[in-house]
């Protein structure tokens, strides 16, 4: 028997969790060091850029956006994930970085006496200038934020972010361009060499990302990283353990700002223009989505979040791809939630049966009620033609009714238990499919937003700590 005070249950808790294939993975995971993982990330990025993109601007753009959001999430992770400061003004640093770069690489100063024709510094000069400027901004805001904690901090920073957008929109329109923003920026340029293509910026961003991941990992496992997390868990205890809480907090703000600013400069150079609307609450929410979906507090999580959110958005923006995403998620959810297998089989069979039956009946009554073509293309569009009920033309009203119905049914399914739920799933899925084919595919842009919102809610309900995040206990 173990000596008193050694509690076996706790001691073994680790081993208990390690069972099944997940356990296997996590054991492997535990053995691998940090730099092999980094290599894997780099390899994936290389494969995508080298073989997948293949000159397609759209893919290059997607890849760039992924890396950009990963960068932003990394920076946010310092402030939110490690130091535990709920900074809703993060977007301001991103914006400041972008505008900083824009000012030194465009005609912006053209209408000032000192620099007619504008300031056109090379990237090696303008990036450090912009980043340093923003670092100072972060320092100042950090100093101000010291007086606040928790939600109050969140509130003030939220308005700092809003104020930034308002300011660039209204102040000095001659220089900042007001609502028209600044455009015609020169790209990253050293001497005569200039990054011209989106793919070029993709590579640049990837390198920046890899370097940052390495540096931040080393920082996280150093005294500074420990201090940040200590302050997050209990700032009072931290201060009683020789940690200068305020200094540490300001440091976190500044580092977050620096990363955001770097991302901002890359963003501005790639878009070759900046607009106040690039830095609105919408973008902030997406960055938070990346971080929280991936798992706040984990570097890999932040990056994964960036991938998931951006790719999801990209897929959702085109009817064909979004169909794959939609049905893919549907399948995965069914597999994951409906156990055991015979139930799954029964449900799927029931859905298919219901579909063709309903289609046949409605078709018999009125042909035009099923004459419409499903919104999604691809190999299964043909099958869907005899499955989903889609009236002729653009059946908006019909689709809207289905949409509302689908939402209500989903809510109902969540409420039901056991066999009732199993039964309710069948019509819900079918209505969902019909709604998707008849309505949601007509407005990809809107659908994307709705799906993102849904993904956020579901993830938070299923796994509040995010995909790669570790479970947190909080003393409130």
């Amino acid at each position, binding site marked *: 028997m173990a*000596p*008193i*005070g*050694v*509690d076996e249950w*706790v*001691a073994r*808790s*680790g081993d208990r969790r390690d069972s099944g294939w997940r356990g296997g993975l996590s054991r492997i995971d535990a053995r691998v060091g940090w730099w092999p993982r980094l290599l894997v990330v780099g390899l994936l990025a290389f494969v995508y850029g080298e073989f997948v993109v293949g000159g397609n601007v759209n893919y290059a753009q997607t890849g760039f956006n992924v890396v950009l959001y990963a960068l932003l999430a990394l920076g946010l992770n310092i402030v939110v994930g490690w130091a535990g400061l709920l900074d809703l003004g993060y977007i301001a640093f991103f914006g400041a970085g972008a505008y900083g770069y824009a000012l030194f690489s465009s005609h912006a100063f053209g209408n000032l006496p000192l620099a007619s024709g504008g300031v056109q510094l090379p990237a090696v000069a303008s990036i450090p200038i912009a980043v340093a400027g923003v670092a100072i901004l972060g320092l100042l805001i950090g100093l101000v934020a010291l007086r606040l904690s928790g939600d109050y901090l969140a509130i003030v920073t939220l308005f700092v972010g809003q104020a930034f957008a308002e300011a660039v929109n209204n102040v000095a329109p001659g220089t900042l361009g007001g609502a028209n923003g600044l455009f015609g920026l020169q790209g990253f340029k050293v001497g005569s060499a200039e990054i011209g293509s989106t793919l070029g910026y993709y590579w640049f961003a990837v390198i920046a990302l890899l370097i940052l991941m390495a*540096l*931040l990992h*080393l*920082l996280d496992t*150093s*005294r*500074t*990283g*420990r*201090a940040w*997390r*200590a302050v*997050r*868990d*209990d700032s*009072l*205890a*931290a*201060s*009683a*353990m*020789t*940690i*200068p*809480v305020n200094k540490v907090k300001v*440091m976190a703000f500044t*580092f977050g700002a620096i990363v955001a600013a770097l991302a901002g400069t890359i963003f501005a150079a790639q878009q070759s223009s900046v607009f106040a609307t690039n830095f609105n609450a919408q973008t902030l929410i997406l960055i938070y989505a990346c971080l929280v979906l991936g798992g706040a*507090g984990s570097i890999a999580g932040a990056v994964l979040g960036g991938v998931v959110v951006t790719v999801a958005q990209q897929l959702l923006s085109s009817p064909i791809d979004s169909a794959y995403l939609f049905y893919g998620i549907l399948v995965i959810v069914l597999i994951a939630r409906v156990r055991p297998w015979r139930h799954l089989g029964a449900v799927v069979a029931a859905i298919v049966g219901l579909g063709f039956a309903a289609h046949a009946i409605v078709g018999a009554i009125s042909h035009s009620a099923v004459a419409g073509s499903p919104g999604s293309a691809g190999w299964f569009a043909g099958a869907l033609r005899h499955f989903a009920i889609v009236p002729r033309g653009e059946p908006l009203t019909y689709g809207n009714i289905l949409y509302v119905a689908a939402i209500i049914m989903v809510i109902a399914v969540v409420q039901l238990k056991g066999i009732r739920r199993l039964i309710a799933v069948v019509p819900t899925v079918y209505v969902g499919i019909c709604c998707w084919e008849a309505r949601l595919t007509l407005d990809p842009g809107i659908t994307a937003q709705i799906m993102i919102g849904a993904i956020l809610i579901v993830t938070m309900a299923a796994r509040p700590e995010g995909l790669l995040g*570790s479970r*947190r*206990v909080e*003393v409130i």
Partner: protein
Amino acid sequence: MTRLLELEGVSLSFGGLRALHALDLHVDEHEIVSVIGPNGAGKSTVFNVITGIYEPDGDIRFDGQSIVGRRPHQITRLGIARTFQSLRLFLNMTVKENVKAATYGGTHATPIESMLRLPRARREEREVEATAQDVLSFFGQRLLGYRFNQPAYVLSYANRRRLEIARAMATGARLLLLDEPAAGMNPNETHEITELIGRLRDERGYTILVIEHDMHVVEGISDRVVALDHGEKLTEGGFHEVANHPGVIEAYLGRNPEALQK
């Protein structure tokens, strides 16, 4: 014997409520002093003013220099570390990280140095690692081995108390303030803690100021006992004289001396 800690006419009041009143208290090098008193007597408040969480009137000197008005982390750097009655570990950090975090004040590598793992950063990391090992090993069986890399929140209550002490040790302090180290422990664990506190002084040379309710522990460890009530010192001296001091008995349990005798 040199005076390590000295409180002189320390008073503190929250709005109208008077938490401490003209309190004099001193702790000598290598001494174990217990502070006793009924709930709300102001024991924890004493710790809070010493560690700089509240700023009192009067003077507090540590090793001869006044520490009133300094920030908590500065005071800890000078060599006063504490544990909390309501456990305040960094629950989401591993056991080892909890201890390492407490070495922040003792190390100086800048973030840049840490990022690039420059020589100073490497050296300090090694030292920190050693400190952590050393401090944790002090608790023998209890905190050793497989538990180092588990988050603190999986620890049992007793082990959380141990970890708090370990954390305090890692700050490199000379004076430990232990706030009810035996609270909520079973008799065996209580017994261990009593031994442990003794060893802290004898093996590690710490000076210890401890708040404790459990009279067995107090009796077992104290060189000197200070009794507080309503933020004022009732009496101080050896355990038995304090325990039999009528004021103390009354303060504790009105008119029922038996409880303290056994």
